[in-house]
C-alpha cells in the first residue's frame, strides 16, 4: 500500500470516480473535489502529494488552483488534466510549475507510469533532504563526540554563538577539543563556505610569526623569493583560529590587536594596506587573567578576544562519554591499522572509567591507538592500555592508587555488610565492576 495521497479535482463526477477507482486499485489514498473552491478548502486541512487538476472548471479554474497549490506546498506535484482543445492552457500551466499534463482520455499505461515517476521523484527529493540533513548533522559538530550534559551544553552554546560574528575565546585544558569546537562554530556559521585557517601560535617561532600572519612581499627579506599571502589574508571570508593564543609574544600581541581593531594590515615589506574580513576564534589552555597580572599578556587584547568565551570540560568532568569516545577511536585506529580489534573488554573499560585522564581526550586517543597497535587479541585488554601499565608495579615507599582503591573498596564493603548493590552505588560504579575489582584485588569477606 502506497502512502501517496492524491487529490483529483474535476467538476465531472464520472471522471472523478473513474480515476479515483483506478488509482485506489493501485493502492493510493485518493480523495476528490468537485470544484477549485472545494479543493482549496480541503487543502487547509489535508496535505496531498499529487494533485490531478482539470484545467477547465466552473468558478476557480484549474490554473488558479495550480498557483494556489504551488504557493502553499512547493513539494506537492500537480498534473493538469486537459481536453484536446485546451493544450495552450496546459502549456501555460507547465510554465506555472505543473509537473505534466495529460490529455483526456489517458492511456492507462501512461497514467501509471506518470504517477510512479512522480512518486519516485518525490521520494528522491525527500531522500536528498534527509541525506543533506544527515550530512549537516554529522558535520555540524565534526568529530565532537559526547552525550554527557557538559557536552550537550557545549553543543547548545556553539549553536547559539555560531550565527553571531563576534570573536570567541575558548579556554580549557590541553586535549579537551578546543580546536574541534572552533571548527564547529565555523561550520555552523554564515562563513561555513569560507576558509577555516588555523594559526598555532605556540608552534610558530617568533621570528616567522609576523610573515606567517601577515604574509610578505617578494624581497622583503633574504628568503622572501616570492610574495606570499599570510594567514590573515587566507582567512578572508572565513574564520581565523588562533590556537594557543597565550603563547604569542608581546610584540605580536600589539600587531594582532591593531589588526583586530582595524581589520587592515600590511604584508611584511609591503606598502599597500590589505583589508581582510574574517572572524576570530582564539583558544588557550592558559589562565589569561593570571597572565595579565603577571604582565605576559596584554589586557586590551584579552578584552578584544574575550567577547564571548566558554570553557571546554575536561574528560574527568564528562566520564560518561569515555565509552563512546573509546569506541570511536577504536573503530578509527582498527580501520587505519587494519587490525581485527573490534571490542574493548569490560575490564579495560573499567580501568578507563577509573582513570582521571589528565591529558584529556588526546590522552585517551593515544591510549587507544597504542592499545590497538600492541593488542594481540580481538579485544582491548587492560594490559594493552598504557594507563594500566603505568599503575604497576606498586611503589613501595608510598601507597599506590591500587592499594588506596583496594582499601577503600574493602572499607565500603565492610561498612555495608557486603551488600553489593549498596556498595557499588556508594563507590559510583556498577555491580559487575565491583565484582571484577573484588576478584582482581583478591578481596575476601572477613567472617
Amino acid at each position: 500500500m502506497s502512502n501517496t495521497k492524491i487529490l483529483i479535482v474535476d467538476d465531472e463526477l464520472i471522471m472523478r470516480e473513474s480515476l479515483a477507482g483506478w488509482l485506489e486499485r493501485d493502492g493510493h489514498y485518493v480523495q476528490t473535489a468537485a470544484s477549485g473552491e472545494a479543493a482549496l478548502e480541503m487543502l487547509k486541512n489535508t496535505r496531498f502529494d499529487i494533485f490531478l487538476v482539470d484545467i477547465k472548471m466552473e468558478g476557480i479554474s484549474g490554473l488558479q488552483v495550480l498557483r494556489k497549490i504551488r504557493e502553499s506546498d512547493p513539494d506537492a506535484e500537480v498534473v493538469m488534466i486537459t481536453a484536446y482543445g485546451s493544450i495552450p492552457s496546459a502549456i501555460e500551466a507547465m510554465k506555472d510549475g505543473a509537473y505534466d499534463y495529460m490529455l483526456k482520455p489517458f492511456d492507462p499505461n501512461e497514467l501509471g507510469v506518470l504517477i510512479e515517476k512522480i512518486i519516485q521523484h518525490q521520494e528522491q527529493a525527500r531522500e536528498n533532504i534527509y541525506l543533506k540533513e544527515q550530512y549537516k548533522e554529522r558535520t555540524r559538530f565534526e568529530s565532537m563526540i559526547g552525550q554527557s550534559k557538559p557536552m550537550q551544553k557545549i553543543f547548545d552554546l556553539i549553536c547559539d554563538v555560531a550565527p553571531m560574528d563576534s570573536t570567541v575565546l575558548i579556554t580549557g585544558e590541553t586535549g579537551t577539543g578546543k580546536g574541534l569546537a572552533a571548527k564547529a562554530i565555523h561550520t555552523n556559521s554564515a562563513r561555513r563556505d569560507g576558509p577555516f585557517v588555523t594559526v598555532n601560535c605556540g608552534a610558530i617561532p617568533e621570528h616567522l610569526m609576523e610573515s606567517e600572519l601577515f604574509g610578505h612581499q617578494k624581497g622583503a627579506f633574504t628568503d622572501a623569493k616570492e610574495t606570499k599571502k599570510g594567514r590573515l589574508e587566507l582567512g578572508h571570508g572565513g574564520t581565523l583560529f588562533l590556537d594557543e593564543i597565550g603563547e604569542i609574544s608581546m610584540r605580536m600581541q600589539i600587531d594582532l590587536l591593531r589588526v583586530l581593531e582595524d581589520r587592515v594590515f600590511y604584508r611584511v615589506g609591503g606598502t599597500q594596506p590589505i583589508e581582510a574580513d574574517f572572524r576570530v576564534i582564539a583558544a588557550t589552555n592558559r589562565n589569561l587573567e593570571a597572565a595579565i597580572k603577571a604582565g605576559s599578556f596584554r589586557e586590551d587584547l584579552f578584552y578584544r578576544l574575550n567577547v564571548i568565551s566558554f570553557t571546554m570540560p575536561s574528560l574527568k568532568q564528562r566520564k560518561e562519554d569515555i565509552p563512546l569516545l573509546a569506541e570511536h577511536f577504536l573503530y578509527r585506529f582498527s580501520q587505519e591499522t587494519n587490525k581485527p580489534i573490534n571490542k574493548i573488554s569490560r575490564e579495560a573499560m573499567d580501568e578507563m572509567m577509573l582513570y582521571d585522564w589528565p591529558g584529556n581526550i588526546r590522552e585517551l586517543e593515544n591510549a587507544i591507538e597504542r592499545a590497538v597497535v600492541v593488542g594481540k587479541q580481538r579485544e582491548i585488554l587492560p594490559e594493552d592500555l598504557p594507563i594500566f601499565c603505568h599503575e604497576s608495579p606498586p611503589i613501595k615507599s608510598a601507597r599506590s592508587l591500587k592499594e588506596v582503591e583496594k582499601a577503600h573498596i574493602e572499607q565500603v564493603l565492610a561498612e555495608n555488610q557486603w551488600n553489593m548493590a549498596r556498595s557499588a552505588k556508594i563507590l559510583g560504579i556498577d555491580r559487575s565492576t565491583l565484582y571484577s575489582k573484588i576478584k582482581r584485588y583478591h578481596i575476601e569477606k572477613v567472617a
Partner: protein
Amino acid sequence: MSSHDAHSIIVSPVGEFAPDLLDLIRNEIKRIYGYPTDVMTLLDDLEFAFHAGRNQYHSTPILEQLALRAPAGAVKILAIVEVDLFIPILTHVYGEAQLGGKACIVSTIRLNEGHSSLNTQEPFLGRIVKEAIHELGHTFKLRHCREHTCLMHYCRDERDVDRKSDQLCRYCRILLDDEIKRLQKS
C-alpha cells in the same frame, strides 16, 4: 438463468466463449479463492453501456448492473466479455472491478490480440485466466501488488501478463485469506 449453489462465485459470460476457457477459469477460481463456481448469464447484451463516440463499452455501469442482478448468496460475480472496455478517463481497460465489492469484469479482446473469443490457444488463454483472477482479487479487497510475479501485479501490456505467474505472492495470499475469513464470518 440457471440455478446456483449458495456461497459460490458466479462466472457470467456475455457472448459465446470456448468451454475450455470457462472451465479453466472456474478451476483457477476454485484453486485460488477456494469457492465453488457457477456459470450463469446475468446480462444478455451490453448496449446500455455502449458509447458510440468511442465505439467502446463503459465498464462501470456493467459492474453496477451485474451487482444488482447478483443472485442471493453469490459471493462474487465475474463477467467475461469480448468487447473493448473503457472507463471515461482512460482510453481502454482490460477489466474493472468494484474494490471490495461484488462484481468484476474482464474483456478478452485486447488480451486475445483481436482473435475470436473461441480461441483457446496459448498464450491468450493463460492471459485471460490470469486477468480474470486478477480482477476477482480486487473484489476481495486486494490492490495492485509491486511483486512482478504476483497475480495482483498491474500489467501495462500483454507481455507483462505473460511474465507474471499464476500465483498470488505470500503477502497477497495472507490478505486474501483474511478477507475470505471475514466474509465467511459475516
